[in-house]
């Protein structure tokens, strides 16, 4: 029993270390692909982050933790950031080539307002489910 266990530990260890060295080349995911994935992921994270921040500012204001002035200033600041993120997202989708930049900004402003409203109303929807 002891010998079997001893053999098992040794053979399993040798296999775990040795097999990756001799096995056939696998479809190793290229670094570029993982970098692309990271960039995409980062943009998505930024978007989620900025809208969550806007949601928290809204909630803190309604819980009377933020003054009217600070609320306005913070909201404006993060709306600007949201525009930048959404613009970057639009650029990634290559839809900006023929668009009028001013028009895009107006659309994004609208989109942000909708996103904020969506963030606030998300709870309402959940509540009614």
């Amino acid at each position, binding site marked *: 029993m002891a010998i079997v266990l001893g053999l098992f530990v040794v053979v399993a260890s040798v296999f775990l270390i040795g097999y990756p060295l001799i096995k056939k080349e696998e479809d190793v995911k290229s670094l570029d692909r993982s970098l692309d994935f990271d960039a995409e992921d980062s943009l998505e994270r930024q978007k989620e982050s900025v809208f969550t921040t806007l949601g928290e500012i809204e909630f803190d204001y309604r819980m009377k*933790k933020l003054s009217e002035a600070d609320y306005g200033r913070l909201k404006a600041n993060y709306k600007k950031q949201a525009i930048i993120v959404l613009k970057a997202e639009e650029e990634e989708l290559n839809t900006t080539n023929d668009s009028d930049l001013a028009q895009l900004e107006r659309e994004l402003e609208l989109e942000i307002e909708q996103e904020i409203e969506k963030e606030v109303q998300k709870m309402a929807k959940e509540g009614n489910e």
Partner: protein
Amino acid sequence: MADIGYLSLILAFAISIYSVVAFIVAAKTDNERLKASAKGGVAAVCLATTVASSILIYLLMTSDFSIEYVYSYTSKNLPVFYKLSAFWAGNAGSLLLWSWVLAIYTAIVTFSKKHEHDEKLPYVSTILTFMNIFFLLLMVFLDANPFEKIPGGVMPAEGAGLNPMLQNPGMVFHPVTLYLGYVGFAVPYAFAMSALLLKKVDDSWIKVTRRWTVVAWMFLTLGNLYGAQWAYVELGWGGFWAWDPVENASFIPWLTGTAFLHSVMIQERKDMLKIWNMTLIIITFLTTIFGTFLVRSGVLQSVHSFATNQAFGAAFLIFMSIAALVSFYLLIDRINLLKQGNQFESYLSKESSFLINNLLLLGAAFATFWGTIFPLVSEAIRGVKVTVSVPFFNQVNGPILLATIFVMGVCPLIAWQRSTLKNLRNNFLWPFSIATVTGIGLYFYLPGKSLYGAVAFGVAAFVILTILQEFYRGTAVRHRMTGEGYITALGKLMIRSRRRYGGYTVHLGIVLIVIAVIGSYGYKTEVTKQVGVGENINVGNYTLTFNGLQEKPEGENTIVFAEMPVTKNGKSIGTIIPEKVFYATWEQPGTEVAIKGSLTEDLYVLLASWEQNGKVATFKVNVNPLMSWMWIGGYIMVLGTIFAVWPGKGSQLGPKYTQ
């Protein structure tokens, strides 16, 4: 079988070295095959330490006294429960447990899908495996082999048995949870060092290690809690905490870990305090090793100490010094990168309150550290070993920790970035007013007219009220916005912001513990009295009657006990039975505390000694107010932590504030 256990340790040691080298070479040469092989090495170390641990458990369970460790810590009649706990009762076994847990954690990190594309991963695995080399080295080469055979090869008929003080359920849970916590902090430390090595000091290392940090902190909390519970019922100290050097050694990383847990939120949300966070995780990791060093070096006297030789102390000191030197070198070398980031915008902001909380926690950690090592410093400098006792720790840490609790109450009332006095006043008014009235009321109502106690209760009331206000206001806002019923709104509010409301629940648990500490320290009634048969002991509202001592056998042990009828305010509330246990395999008798507990107070009785064949006995009787809240608070803390880290939408990415 023991030979296979030892072989597994040697194998784990050799493979760990291979893995470290392979990871480094693979990183330098970008060799994917070698990297995969190094990862395989991590799995092999995990397998080998698992086999070694399983063999030790098998040897303990089968009472194989030809193995010195099994002989030293078990006997045939020891219940299975304690045979298992003998695994970590001695130095060699506890090192194996440490190494095993570390190997499992390293394998989880190394093979986690989440870290698959993380360029820090090879460095993290290298650092964690390197740590394990140290622990394996101690077992393989430094007289801590748990599979060492009895000299002469003759198997004794019976083992020496487990120290009776260790025969308590606390022995099963306290060391394991502490180790899970200690070793758990090695993971965020390894990620932090990898971030420094790679010069990528953004908040990604914090995000990927948040759960590790919180879970490690939870285990450390549980470990301390179980330790306190054990000390309360078993050691006969009359309390749950005695500022024993090794208790302090587990409290210090808890304090710095708590500070780290909070300050990483600032980096995550505001891209600030990068240097501070690196420093905190380094200190937290080093203090976990410091605790292990204290237990094994023999430099301090403690109920927790293992009997070891000086070589162990030296080995831990060298390991700690190397870790400290390398960590702080990297920190200083990358300091310019860490300086980049945002600045504080306002003194009145959540982040500034977090910073104050951090400074207070660090202050308490430093005071505890200094009090713990002062006898050593004094001995080294003046040749005189000075004892730093309980009053020092209480006097220094009491106010600091009370201030920390107060800040814990203020913090939720302030918004991130900036707040105004008007907003603060709006949020403060009711909690502060009610807490003040509570404090004043308790000052006059409670015995002793203790100003300190009244202020402390007032602060605790303030924090509870702010937490309840947060729950109420959040629910009310959600109710207004969604039209949900209050209970649904509360449930969904908590689930959607699990981190925030899990955190508040943890805070609530802490305040309950604080209330228990204030009650049991500040309002305890203590009587030590010698009584003859038929005489009474009056303590507070209780009267205990001594009717003589009795004796009964329990297995091979003999129990001497006093069955004492108890009345409270003249009404009978049953009997209480303090005991002394005389063990067949141990010279020192054990004291079994008798406790009659309720939510308001514990009647706590110890049989200290007796004379004249048991016709006269001395008892120590305490009335410890509010003690139950310590255990309730502890479990609320753990539940809050689990709620906060439970996977799902509400536990995901938090908001991020910029300038």
